[in-house]
């Protein structure tokens, strides 16, 4: 379907790189998903190599349509979100806080 890219784009994406990206993305993917993802991402990146032929050396990047600037408001107290209402929407809460499993993998719950 797609041909390997050439020119200045990085080498084809490998399943090892895809597995690393899945880890960075906090996504547990099955082996089948990783294989399919490798094929599909490769196809996309091949297509995206079309911009390699552009000379972009003197072009400034554009990250926002209009320049961002800090927005300030008067320092007056306004009502925040209702804590109980917010916690009620969480999968687990305890003592007015979000409850999460241990972060150091200290045994099964």
């Amino acid at each position, binding site marked *: *379907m797609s041909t390997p890219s050439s020119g*200045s*784009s*990085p080498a084809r*994406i490998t399943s090892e*790189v*895809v597995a690393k*990206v*899945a880890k*960075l*993305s*906090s*996504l*547990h*993917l099955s082996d089948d*998903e990783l294989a399919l*993802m490798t094929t*599909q*991402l490769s*196809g*996309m*990146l091949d*297509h*995206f190599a*079309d*911009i*390699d032929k*552009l000379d*972009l050396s003197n*072009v*400034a*990047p*554009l*990250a*926002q*349509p*209009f320049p*961002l600037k800090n*927005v300030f*408001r008067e320092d007056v107290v306004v009502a925040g*979100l*209702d804590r109980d*209402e*917010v916690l009620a*929407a*969480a*999968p*687990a809460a305890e003592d007015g806080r*979000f409850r*999460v*499993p*241990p*972060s*150091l*993998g*200290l*045994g*099964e*719950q």
Partner: protein
Amino acid sequence: MTKPFATVVDIAADIAAGKTSAVEVLEQHLARITERESDIHAFNLVTTEQARATAQQVDADIKAGKPVGPLAGVPVALKDNMCTRGIETTCSSKILEGWKPPYDATVVTRLQQAGAVMVGKTNLDEFAMGSSTENSAFGPTKNPLDTSRVPGGSSGGSAAAVAAGFAAASLGSDTGGSIRQPASLCGLVGVKPTYGLVSRQGIVAFASSLDQVGPFTHTVADAALMMEVIGGHDPLDSTSLPQPMPSLTSVLGQGVKGMRIGRLADMPDGCEPEVLARMDAAYVALQAAGATIVDIALPSLSYCLTAYYLVAPAEASSNLARYDGVRYGMRVETGDLHSMYGATRAAGFGAEVKRRIMLGTYALSAGYFDAYYGKALKVRRLIANDFAAAYEKCDVILTPTSPTVAFPLGDKTSDPLTMYLCDIFTIPTNLAGHAAMSVPFGTGAHNMPVGVQVLAPALGEQTMFRVAAELERAS
């Protein structure tokens, strides 16, 4: 062209004048939902009881002689990525299923203050990622004009709800064409306002530098009224533009005499001949109304797809990091925090969302940032420069909204890239932060509607709506 259902303008006028009531109008819309929703699946949730309570309140206010808003009693539907306090907001994703936001989006508050009656939350491609609404975790929406075809996406449910007469108007969000393309495929008017003209506060973020909220309606006048209600500065959105909302309803009759209409000298491949024929007819109609047609070039147009499909997933990969099973939605219980994150996200996100998170994370990761995300931002500058040069020669640009009419369900689901190609004409506007809208202009293949897209520079809404109104008169 006669419209099959009552317009926002007519409904609001008739209710205000006492010719009908908000309850009566609502029941007509609910009856159509009862009749056809099981075939269409426009909604994730129909808020029947809340809608009836709101309509009764509107009628009571009118009876009591209290002042009511410009949309008093008008049934509207909201894309299910807009926060509604206490009412489930899912983004058509399993990861948010059951979540009830603790606040309303600014656009929701403004609709409520204008007296609108919310009838439900509409289906979308999961987290607005898609062009057909087939990526919803809750099943696809069908095009009401031909249920074997897609309504477009990602705001397909909002488009279908209006096209089927379930609501007189709806709101969608447009990151790369997600309002304009479904409007085109369903024969509706759909508006992507200038970035910052409509508040994004309370809209679940997909790609923050590209997302904008806008209306779906049957007529240009309805869209103008909806824009006046939802638009204008919002202190709760740091990217909200400081200026007040310009009047749009007052300019619709001003015509296009003396206006310069840009025509793409090089049309990209892949357009259906019937779509191109309607484009030619649109130029003829505007010329007959006194406008001049000017050939313009957007040399970077073909590279926009690449720029968009790197920038949008990059921003999405960051925005969607918040769905981790801690503060809202579902959680897959595992032994420790990090495996809980990974298992929850794996179970909660669908294939397209995972693909875009992966693509975005890759494009932003060390070693690949300059080659992908960095380059994409430079291409984004090129298209903005192209537009700036084009708008030296013309006031608006006309293109097709979509290269094709509505396609059959399942037609483009096997190869993600084919689906991405649907967005070739709509993406550049989002990259530049400009305004654009789709206006129905006759039919193409299979007797399905064709939309003409009117593109205008930033804050060019008044000019854009004048051209749209002229196209509507000629269609």
